[in-house]
């Protein structure tokens, strides 16, 4: 039950990142996504992994809150495809994670697939550096979460993902906007 709620919160956060263009929406979105991933990481890899995800997500959210386009800018004109992506994408991934695949860890599967998919889609549909780097942070955190499927690389993926998620926000905008 807790994992299911956490997966829903993660989807909500990722959807906010997809739907919003302003720094508040992006910061709150990555914060929510990281909160959901933290709970799932706690269950799959323990408290230290969860702390790493939480720290990385929090730093990414704080940094995003301080830079980027002002305000929330949720669902600006022309964002219907993004809304369809969030709803339809979420439902399809839910079907795959809960019905097509079997065994324990449906919440983990759902979270990894939905955040990886939304991050990739967001990057394809935006030119703004703050949006791209927020999606990058989210993707880094979820790749660490996916390490639970592997042969076991310990806590290194979580630490690495936290560093990438936190550091991506500090990438210099001068170079980030280079053309």
């Amino acid at each position, binding site marked *: 039950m807790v994992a299911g709620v956490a997966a829903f919160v993660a989807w909500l956060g990722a959807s906010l990142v997809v739907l919003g263009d302003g720094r508040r929406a992006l910061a709150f979105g990555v914060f929510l996504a990281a909160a959901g991933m933290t709970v799932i990481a706690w269950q799959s890899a323990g408290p230290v992994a969860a702390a790493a995800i939480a720290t990385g997500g929090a730093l990414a959210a704080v940094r995003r809150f301080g830079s980027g386009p002002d305000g929330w800018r949720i669902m600006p004109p022309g964002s219907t495809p993004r809304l369809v992506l969030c709803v339809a994408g979420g439902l399809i991934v839910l079907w795959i994670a809960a019905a*097509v695949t079997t065994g324990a860890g449906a919440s983990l599967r759902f979270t990894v697939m939905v955040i990886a998919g939304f*991050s*990739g889609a967001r990057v394809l549909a*935006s*030119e703004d*550096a703050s949006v791209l780097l927020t999606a990058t942070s989210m993707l880094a955190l979820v*790749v660490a979460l996916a390490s639970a*499927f592997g042969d076991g690389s310990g806590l290194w993926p979580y630490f690495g993902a936290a560093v*990438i998620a936190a550091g991506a926000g500090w990438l210099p905008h001068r170079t980030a*906007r280079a053309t």
Partner: protein
Amino acid sequence: MQPESAVLLVFAAVALAFAVTFNPLSISRGALLLKGGTGLAASAAIAAVPTFDLVLLILLTLGVLHAAIDGRRAFAVRLRAPIVAVATLAVALVFAHAQGPDELQRFAAVGLVAGLAAAVGLMPYMHPLDPEEPMTSSPIPWIAFVGPVLAAVVVARAQQMLAPDAGGVFGGMLIGLGLLNIAWGSIAAWLTESEVAAWRYSFVADWGLVLCGFGLTLADGGRAALLILFSIVVGRLPLYVVSRQALRDKAVAQRPINFVVAGALAGSAPFVGFVARILLLRAATQLYWPLALALALGMLLWLPGSLRLGRSLAVPRGRQAIGVALVLAVNVAAGLYPLPILLAARL
């Protein structure tokens, strides 16, 4: 670390040393060494880490750092391919390990091939190219410097992750994508207007052979893939580096050296590309002879593009002439006696 990846890392180090020593453009060799060294270190980390998720994190880091280098293409344009690659590979990881119907593993195979193509910059995910862009911030480092090690790692991990049935699907997809890249790359290298774009398409065509070699899953296929990767990293990439000044000056020449370079790029005897092609055809014949026929026809398409690229080198002089001679000598040596490379990679 796998022997094949270690050998490819050595090739990349040699290519970096060549680029720093023989780059004809007036750029900072220190900056080139720093950027190339970062790419080399990331490649070494990709080859050395024990799990696939760590590979993805390193790939993501490298993608962000590469996108942040000053360049002509927009940050978003440069970041897209690595992010899409990591996202696709992450979803493939889930499918590969999830319990459920057999089709999941096949989807995992699709994701692994698509992620690899997006990361390296192959059809159908070719990275946008700006002919005026510096080489370090262009797609070339992905396709000719980092890509070979990444491909070897992804293919090896796929063989571990996927069941035999899905492994067959993975191999089939690699061969199909390889044929597509052979046709697209070689024809585009011949017909495209820009000389820089022609060079990039020639890398794509070579990668088509690499994918076919990996997909054949026979010993000769793996050997062919390694030797073609050698010809990319230690042959085509250094020749491209040397040609940068002539490309900028839009100078062309039709001296004997240009025809020799064209021969090396086309994979003619006695260069290493010839041995690789023979091994590839032998493996394809063992598996399914019409595939060998298709590959042989595809290999003929290298000739016009290679003649064009050979001319685009103009007449190398001074240090560049030494560099070209060195590259040709190394490629002839590897073509005449490839056994040490294959033994080092344990193939």
